[in-house]
C-alpha cells in the first residue's frame, strides 16, 4: 500500500484547564488517500472539529493545548520542524471550508478582494479571469455580480460556494470540510455536495468531510470513521458500513436515520459524556444495550473480516 496523503496517528489532544488536563481526543488514527473523500462522523461534542482544527493548525493557543501523536501530510510530520514551514505547507496544499459560510468571510470586504488576497499572498498578480472562472466552476451563475458583492448580500448557499471556490484557488491536495452543509437548506446541501464531489473527481483533491449527517456520508464518502467521545469506534468503507455496521454505536446511528419504509426512528438514549467524565473503558457503555461487565476495560480493536482496513472497538463479535 502506498503511503496515504494524510496520516493521522494516535492523535491525542488535551486542553489545560486551571487545575487539570482535559483530554478531548484519545489516540485518534485515520488515513486519507489521494483523491479520496473520507468522513469523520459523530455526534456533537465528540471531538471531530478539534481534530480538524489540529490538522489545519488552528488550535487556539499552542501553550494551552497538549498535542500527542503525529499528523503526517505528504510524508512530512506537521508537528516537527519550523512552525513557519507548516504554515506555508498548509497554505498551499490544504484548505478548509467552515460550517457557517456567513461568518467565514470578512463582512467588510467585497468577495473579490478576499479572493484576490490569496494571490497577493503568493506574490502573484491578481487574475480576475481566474477568479471568475473559479466561481463559474462552483456553479455561480453571474460571477461578476458576486465578485462585487459583500458577504451579507449573498445567500448561505452562494457563500458556501464562494468558500469552496476560494478553497480551490490554489488547487490544494486536501480540503477539510467541517460540516460544510449544516447551515444550509437541504436542496442547497445537495448542490454543494455535488460540487465538492465533482471537484474531487476533476482535480483529484482529497476531502476530509466532517459531519454528523450519515445521509451525506452514505451518498458521497468513500470511507468513514465513526467518532465517539474522543475516540474512533469504527472505521470502514462506506459500502461495508451501510451493509453491516459493527459497533453498537454505529448501529444506533444508522437506526436513527429516517427511512422510507416507515420503520419508526430509534434514538440512542442519553447523550455524549462531557470530556471530564471520559472513562478508560468503553465510553459508549452507559448508553449501550449490549453492556457487559468487561465494558469497563478499554475495548479491544477488532479488524473487520474481509476488509483489513476496517475495524471497530468493541468486545462484541459482530453478532447482534
Amino acid at each position, binding site marked *: 500500500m502506498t503511503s496515504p496523503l494524510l496520516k493521522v496517528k494516535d492523535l491525542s489532544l488535551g486542553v489545560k484547564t486551571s487545575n487539570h488536563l482535559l483530554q478531548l481526543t484519545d489516540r485518534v488514527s485515520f488515513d486519507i488517500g489521494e483523491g479520496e473523500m473520507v468522513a469523520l462522523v459523530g455526534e456533537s461534542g465528540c471531538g471531530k472539529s478539534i481534530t480538524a482544527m489540529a490538522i489545519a*493548525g488552528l488550535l487556539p493557543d499552542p501553550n494551552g493545548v497538549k498535542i500527542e501523536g503525529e499528523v503526517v501530510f505528504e510524508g512530512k510530520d506537521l508537528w516537527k520542524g519550523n512552525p513557519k514551514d507548516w*504554515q506555508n505547507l498548509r*497554505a498551499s496544499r490544504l*484548505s478548509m471550508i*467552515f460550517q457557517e459560510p456567513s*461568518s*467565514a468571510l470578512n*463582512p467588510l470586504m467585497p468577495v473579490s478582494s478576499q479572493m484576490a488576497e490569496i494571490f497577493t*499572498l503568493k506574490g502573484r498578480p491578481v487574475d480576475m479571469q481566474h477568479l471568475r472562472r473559479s466561481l463559474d466552476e462552483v456553479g455561480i451563475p453571474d460571477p461578476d455580480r458576486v465578485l462585487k458583492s459583500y458577504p*451579507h448580500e449573498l445567500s448561505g448557499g452562494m457563500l458556501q460556494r464562494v468558500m469552496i471556490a476560494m478553497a480551490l484557488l490554489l488547487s490544494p491536495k486536501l480540503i477539510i470540510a467541517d460540516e460544510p452543509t449544516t447551515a444550509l437548506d437541504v436542496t442547497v446541501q445537495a448542490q454543494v455536495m455535488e460540487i465538492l464531489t465533482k471537484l474531487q473527481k476533476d482535480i483529484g483533491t482529497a476531502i476530509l468531510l466532517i459531519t454528523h449527517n450519515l445521509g451525506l456520508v452514505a451518498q458521497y464518502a468513500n470511507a468513514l470513521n465513526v467518532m465517539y467521545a474522543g475516540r474512533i469506534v469504527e472505521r470502514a468503507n462506506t459500502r461495508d458500513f451501510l451493509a453491516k455496521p459493527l459497533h453498537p454505536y454505529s448501529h444506533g446511528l444508522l437506526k436513527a436515520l429516517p427511512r422510507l419504509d416507515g420503520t419508526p426512528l430509534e434514538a440512542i438514549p442519553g447523550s455524549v459524556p462531557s470530556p471530564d467524565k471520559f472513562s478508560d473503558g468503553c465510553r459508549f457503555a452507559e448508553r449501550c444495550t449490549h453492556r457487559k461487565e468487561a465494558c469497563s476495560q478499554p475495548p479491544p480493536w477488532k479488524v473487520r473480516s474481509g476488509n483489513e482496513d476496517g475495524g471497530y472497538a468493541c468486545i462484541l463479535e459482530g453478532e447482534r
Partner: protein
Amino acid sequence: MRVSELTRRRWQNFRSLPRAYISLILLIISFLASLASPLWINDKPLIFSWKSEIYTPIFNYYPDEEFGGKFKTEANYRKLFENHKFLENVSWSIFPIIAHDPLEQNLTGEEPPPHAPSQSHLLGTDTHGRDVLARLIYGYRNGMSFSLLLTLITGTLAIVIGGVQGYLGGKVDFLTQRFIEVWSSLPFLYVVIAIGSFMGRGFTMLLIVMSIFSWIGLSYYMRGEFLKLKNQNYVLACRVAGISNRRIFFNHILPNALTPLVTFIPFAIIGGITSLTALDFLGFGLNPPTPSWGELLAIGLDNRFAPWISISTVMALFFALLLTAFVGEGVREAFDPKGGKN
C-alpha cells in the same frame, strides 16, 4: 477606496438625525474658523497701504523703524494707528473683525479692568484687560486641538495595546492586564502635578501625560473586540490560507473592531475638553498666559462682580459639549443595528 454598503447606511442613519448632523457641521466650521483665528482675531491690521506700499503685518514682520520709529522690534500697530502723522500716509487699511489679540492688555480706560462688555470689547475684558471673546475663541482652539490630538493618540494606543492583548491572548494578555491594573491605580492628578513641576507645563507635556493615562478605558473595549473576532471563521480561514498575523490584525480584524472606537470618539473629545478645562481651572494645566477656558472660569469665579466673564465661558463650554454630545448620540444611533430608518 470603495465605501461599503454598511458605511453608507450608517452615514445615512447619522444624517437622518438632524441635530447630530447640524452639530457636526457647526463643530467642524467653528473649529476650522478657530484654527484660522489669527486672521480674524488680531490686534494687527490684516493689510494696509502706507506711502503707496502694501503691508501685511499678520504674515510679515515689520520693525518699528520701517514706519519712522526708533526701534528694531516689531511695530506697535495700535499706537501707530492712533498717530496722526502715520495715518496721513495710510490710504486704506483692513482690520480683523475682532481687533484684539488674546494676550493684548487694554489698560487705557478710566476704570481698571475687568471692563464690562462694550463696543470695542463685545464680551468685556478679564482682570488683566484682555478681551474675553478673543480669549474664548483662542481657548476653544487650544482645547479642541488638545482634545482631538489626545483622542487620536489615545485611540491609537488603545488599538495597539488592547488589540495585541486580545489577538495574542495567553501570557501577553495576562501580564499586560496586570500592568494596566497597576498603572490605572496611579493617581492622575498627582502625576500631572509632579511631572509639571519639573518638566514644565506646556501643551505637549500635558498631552503626553494625559495620553499615557487615558488609553486604558478604551483598550478594554478593543481587547474584547479582538478576543471575540479572532475566533471568527473568517479569521480562521485567513490563518489556514497562511495570511500573516499583521495582515489579519490590520486588514481583517481591525476594521471590524472599530465600532466601539468610533462610538467612543465624541465622548473622548468631551472628556478631553473637560479634563483640560478642569486642570486649567485648578492651575495645573497650560501655562499662563495661554488662553484657556479653565483659566477664564477661575478668573470668573474670583470676580463674581464681573459676571460677563463666567457667563460667557460657561455658555461656550456648555455649547461645545452639547454639540459634541449630539454628534455622539448621532454616531451611536448610526451604529445601532436595531435603530435607524433603513
